[in-house]
């Protein structure tokens, strides 16, 4: 066991896999010599050499396209998109090419690649450097989508993503980079598509992802302390594949569902899960499904506005309390 930052866990996860498999290569802007603008890839170029860890021009289409071409010819590339907002400039490569090629070729082409990216808000970077784009990727058939909330999960899920034979979008929540957590020694490989019940409970199910996990947990602790409410908090960890069993089982137990989403309201991941539960879990539901999201607006830069937009511990706790009360 070692204590490690989320940032360092990224480096550790990549290093673990590059060590193991010489076909793992890594490319992106400022990732090599500079160690990444979030300092999450420091030292990799010294350890694995310039052939495997490559700085690129500001050419996101070429970065992602190159990763695809390399993946279809035997390598297992990891590409970094410095900010997840830059998926927008390479979206064709991701959504039209990478996601569809295996299917269109009826399995002739495999694309074992990972696109890592700094996702989400909380640092006051404004609307074009703070988006949560998990839902963009979730909507595209052929992409797996992973978003860890702890250093341990960063290492384990990154390893799983790199070993996965299919394309994985790996969303690192950028405000989490400095957080610390325990990471077991030795090789760590997690399993994609497994949600974690991070706080078992019985009164309602609360689903969260990435930076919303610690907030949901704190809200749950507060409500436990103030109201005696016992919430079950689930860290989804992966949107595709989605651990529908864990979600539906939990709702079966609690009869209530809340989602806590950093994204703007419309078509955030919670919409899909709400629709799933409103069908397959309908008879378990005792009251409305409630989504706690950002309002449907871009993320403002001013700290006061940014924090008013993203679901806060207060808003999560207040909303859950009010909606539980209402249904009693």
């Amino acid at each position: 066991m070692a204590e490690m930052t989320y940032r360092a866990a990224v480096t550790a996860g990549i290093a673990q896999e590059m060590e193991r498999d010489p076909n793992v290569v890594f490319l992106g802007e400022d990732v090599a010599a500079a160690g990444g603008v979030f300092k999450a890839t420091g030292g990799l170029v010294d350890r694995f050499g310039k052939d495997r860890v490559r700085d690129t021009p500001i050419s996101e289409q070429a970065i992602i396209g190159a990763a695809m071409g390399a993946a279809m010819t035997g390598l297992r590339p990891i590409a970094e998109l410095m900010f997840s907002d830059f998926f927008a400039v390479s979206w064709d490569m991701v959504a039209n090419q990478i996601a569809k090629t295996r299917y269109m070729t009826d399995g002739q082409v495999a694309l074992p690649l990972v696109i890592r990216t700094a996702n989400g808000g909380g640092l006051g970077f404004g609307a074009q450097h703070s988006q949560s784009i998990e839902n963009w990727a979730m909507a595209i058939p052929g992409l797996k989508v992973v978003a860890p909330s702890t250093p341990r999960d960063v290492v384990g899920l990154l390893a799983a993503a790199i070993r996965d034979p299919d394309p994985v979008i790996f969303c690192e929540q950028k405000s989490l980079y400095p957080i610390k957590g325990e990471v077991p020694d030795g090789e760590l490989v997690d399993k994609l598509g497994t949600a974690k019940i991070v706080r078992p409970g019985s009164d309602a199910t609360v689903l969260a992802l990435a930076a919303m996990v610690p907030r949901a947990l704190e809200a749950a602790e507060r409500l436990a302390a103030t109201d005696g409410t016992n919430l079950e908090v689930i860290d989804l960890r992966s949107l595709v594949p989605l651990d529908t069993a864990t979600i539906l089982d939990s709702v079966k137990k609690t009869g209530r569902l809340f989602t806590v989403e950093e994204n703007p309201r419309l078509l955030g991941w919670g919409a899909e899960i709400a629709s799933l539960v409103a069908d397959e879990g309908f008879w378990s539901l005792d009251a409305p499904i409630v989504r706690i999201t950002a309002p449907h607006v871009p993320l403002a830069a001013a700290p006061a506005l940014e924090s008013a937009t993203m679901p806060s511990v207060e808003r999560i706790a207040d909303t859950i309390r009010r909606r539980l009360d209402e249904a009693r």
Partner: protein
Amino acid sequence: MAGRTQVAARPSGPGTAARAGTATRAAGSRARSNGGAAPAEIQIDEATRLRMYRTITEARAFEKRANELFLEGVVRGTTHLAAGQEAVAAGFAAAMRKDDYTFCTYRGHHHTLARGVPMTPMLLEMVGKKGALMGGKGGSMHLTSVEHGAMGSYAIVGAHLPIALGAAWSAQYRKSGQVAVCFFGDGTTNIGAFHEALNMAAVWKAPVVFVCENNQYMEYTAIRDVTAVEHPAADRAASYGLESIVIDGNDPEAVYATARRYIDRARDGGGPALIECMTYRHGGHSRADPGTYRPKEEVAAWLARDPLPTYRAKLIEVGIAAAQLDEMDKEAARKVAEAEQAARTAPEPDPASIETQLWSDGGSSWRSAPAASTTAASATTATAATETAGRATNG
């Protein structure tokens, strides 16, 4: 114009446009190629010539029939014919190693056939029947046969240039000696992906040869109306430190010689090249487009330079027996007839196949475990899982 050497004038007709052999121009300020050195004259043996003729006649026969089948309603969706442009495919394929990679576009039948992909599964893919090259999932615009090095036809303009660069990077990293050859049209030179791929390929000295088939039109609009330079690819080569190269894309031997030179150079670590082949499509952009936006005289002039009869004449001139060529034409016709027969008679593909091969496990589930086995197996749950897919395997 200052600063250019051997610049071909914009063709007023194909006769002036295309010159046999390569015409290289001065490279940019930091050219990374060794293209300045004169290569040994490239010899073309008879086998290569026959191989090129075969590609041309087979591609022509295949596409002619595919078009008829399209008009008849047997081929569905869309098709983009390369009739008139086959010499590019013939010359390049002949210069490639068996394990080299081809990346091409929706207008890619000629390149796909040139790599040895059999006609029957190709045509079945175009009609969308059982036995299709890709199970009918790709269609006419996405023909791919990895075992033949045909790494895909791409339908979004420009997308495959970065992808080809990636395959080349992979070959470089694996030290496999493979080269990626990436074909695209004149219109493609105006999209962002072109620029990004060319620059990164040059900086990385990736073994990739970019080939612009300049057929002078992007769909229905003349390339000259939407492009700031005369030669959409060659006039941009200097932006990437590359030589400016314009060749006659209707002359298979000119194409072959240039292809050999730059493919070999790429294989030897000399980095990428950008080659502009002047050519012309005989028909419209796709399907039933009559191509009426093109001046009659222009079409006529290019038809007069049709690579099929002209190369045939040339081969006879250098001593190849007409009978041998006739035999190849017949062989092409036989293959086409066989493919046609299959296309007309093959059954529809199994609809259940739509839920296969999204993932490497062979399936397409977005759930990490089948719903029925993990939730209480109530009728509701099981049915709902079925619902969203339209069939049970989606769960």
